[in-house]
């Protein structure tokens, strides 16, 4: 049977896992009883954002009960709405807004530069994921480590890397984050502990697990966050890494960005359990699903898991649902999406929504909005200008990064060079 792309406005094809079935039968009643409760207020059913959890306790009772909404798309339960906006510091909220807008404008500029052939290779944008990124990054401490997949520009900026070094890396310049060696998929910065965007799907999972192992080995209190897309939950590295992380009690948060489309394949067509946050249950890893369009919901869910991972020394799984506003990469016209789906993605623009919320709450004035827009535009223009004016790496540096420890007989042969000079 061919599985058709899921209409975004319809519920997931697969129903919730029934009690006592499969992996969900693993937990004992004792575990249910000791399963920590998620702290968060339950908001009205109609609220635009949600948080959904899957704990060991869920394995012994009907999941979600009758809370699944018949309208509005995703199955939702136990809503943990964002903290009351009134409880937040306006300054902080505006900073989130600014960060989101910065990523938006940065990625738009990136797309433009790509079409102008200033950027080469593959180029995957974070358009539509701004709330998720800012929410996640806000939940991390500076000392925490981040591993991501190849859709990494926004995360790099969110983790604290300068837009200049990210854009210069995209331009392949020597001033780039990785000195022009990585490109779009390989942002990296030891300073801000952004330990890499990785181009191989799933490649970052064992690495992040190992980073958490190093923390555990040394008795450190850092946490590792490992971001990935929904398609990654099907690769072997996923299973091996979650198993090891849980087995060895490692402080790592696996974050799945579920935009429901792995390149062009719907999540239901690739994952036997499309409710991805539940997929940690085979490893006794607690999973939480959060609305990735809601920066505060994401922040709260992530912060909760990050701090628990830190204090409890164990891994967690966070699924953030999101809309990908454009194709898989800059060159993907995304023809597999219907007009309605595109329309829905647009209407679910997290920035527009957050802007409206802030305006409604009187936090974002017209003046502030303009000021932020200007400063962001300036920052992005500066990044692009910096990249444009930066030098290309010298060919003489070609052999500088093959080995960290110099070694005898290392090859420094250029393509046309003889192996032995006459």
């Amino acid at each position, binding site marked *: 049977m061919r599985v058709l792309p899921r209409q975004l406005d319809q519920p997931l094809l697969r129903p919730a896992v029934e009690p006592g079935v499969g992996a969900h039968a693993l937990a004992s009643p004792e575990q249910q009883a000791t399963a920590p409760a998620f702290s968060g207020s339950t908001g009205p059913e109609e609220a635009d954002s949600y948080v959904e959890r899957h704990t060991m306790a869920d394995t012994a009772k009907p999941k979600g009960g009758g809370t699944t909404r018949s309208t509005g798309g995703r199955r939702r339960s136990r809503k943990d709405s964002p903290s009351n906006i009134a409880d937040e510091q306006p300054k902080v909220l505006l900073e989130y807004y600014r960060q989101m807008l910065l990523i938006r404008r940065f990625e738009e500029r990136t797309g433009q530069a790509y079409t102008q052939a200033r950027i080469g290779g593959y180029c995957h944008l974070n358009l539509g994921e701004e709330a998720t990124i800012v929410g996640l990054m806000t939940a991390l401490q500076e000392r925490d480590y981040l591993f991501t997949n190849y859709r990494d520009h926004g995360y790099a900026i969110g983790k604290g890397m300068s837009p200049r070094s990210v854009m210069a890396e995209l331009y392949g310049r020597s001033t780039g984050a990785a000195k022009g060696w990585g490109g779009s998929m390989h942002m*990296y910065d030891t300073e801000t502990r952004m330990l890499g965007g990785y181009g191989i799907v799933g490649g970052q999972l*064992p690495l992040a697990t*190992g980073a958490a192992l190093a923390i555990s080995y040394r008795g450190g209190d850092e946490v590792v966050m490992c971001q990935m897309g929904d398609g990654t939950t099907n690769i072997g590295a996923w299973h091996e890494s979650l198993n090891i992380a849980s087995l060895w009690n490692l402080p790592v948060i696996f974050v799945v960005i579920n935009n429901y489309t792995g390149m062009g394949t719907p999540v239901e067509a690739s994952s036997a359990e499309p409710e991805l946050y539940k997929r940690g249950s085979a490893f006794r890893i607690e999973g939480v699903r959060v609305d990735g369009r809601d920066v505060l919901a994401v922040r709260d869910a992530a912060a909760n898991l990050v701090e628990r991972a830190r204090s409890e020394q164990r891994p967690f799984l966070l699924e953030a649902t999101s809309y990908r506003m454009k194709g898989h990469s800059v060159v993907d016209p995304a023809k597999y999406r219907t007009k309605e789906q595109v329309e829905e993605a647009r209407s679910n623009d997290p920035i527009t929504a957050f802007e409206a919320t802030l305006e409604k709450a009187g936090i974002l004035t017209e003046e502030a909005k303009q000021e932020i827009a200007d400063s962001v535009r300036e920052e992005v223009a500066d990044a692009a200008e910096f990249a444009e004016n930066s030098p290309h790496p010298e060919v003489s540096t070609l052999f500088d990064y093959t080995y960290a420890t110099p070694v005898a007989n290392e090859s420094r042969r250029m393509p046309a060079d003889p192996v032995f000079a006459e």
Partner: protein
Amino acid sequence: MSVITYRQALRDTLRAEMHRDENVFLMGEEIGVFEGSYKITEGLLKEFGERRVRDTPIAEEGFVGAAIGAAMLGLRPVVEIMTINFSLIAIDQIINHAAKIYGMFGGQTSVPMVIRTPGGGGQQLGATHSQNIELFYSFVPGLKVLAPSTPAEAAAMLRAAIRDDDPVLFLENLGLYNSKGEVPEGDETVAEIGRAAVTREGTDITLIGYSRMAMVAGQVAEALAAEGISVEVVDLRSLRPLDRQTIVESVCKTGSAVIAEDDWLTYGIGAEIAASIQEGAFDYLDAPVRRVAMAEVPMPYAKPLESAALPSVESITTAVKETLNAVGRRVG
């Protein structure tokens, strides 16, 4: 000076390095409670505890990748992959990650780790457990690949591998674990990675090998010496970087070369050696470079078939003599 096995040399070195550096720890399948499939890590769990001698699930991609991640944060994991055949499950982590992280991120983070793994055939382990695929790793810049052939070399090279800041694939061999050799007591020699060694000087022909084949090459040379044939033996020791200079210098001296390799011939390690020789010693070659390599079949189980498929003292001797005949040395 004491005579110990290759296995003992590895174990002693691991123990000493773990005492020397708190960041050194071991990971692998069955290395702790079971004390290692080939008993290299015998006694180490008792001595160092679970934190530093870590049994892993059967998940090569997962635990090799985890070792890489731990190395990125400055630890010095020494991973054991039970045999090199199983490294295929971890090959994405080894080639796409361990080998790339230092360069791909502009030299910001090195990956100081060691993957110890034995290759070898001849134990009737069949097609999937008798391969010698070190070539796959030797092909990749960013990795260092070592292949010691004696206990002393194994110790000095493992020491070098652990102290090196790059990912090192450390090739062992099932057929060498019980081989014995002299290792100076209290020896602290740290081998220089990237150097081959002339392990026996000779004038008539150069015989090149690595790992088990270097040992066999030594046996062939010894036997031929009795017939008045002077064979120079080159032990490659480091497959990447490859010490072409030492190889070529030897061939320039003798004028002919035979390469013994435990892998398949086509595109094999020997092909690279032969190509290097023709480029570096073209005007010194008196005969075509000869390769002795495994028959190009999935390794059969049955003993007569397996023995026939593997290079041996006899087949190498034949190749050496035929090459000598080709340059006018009439030998049996």
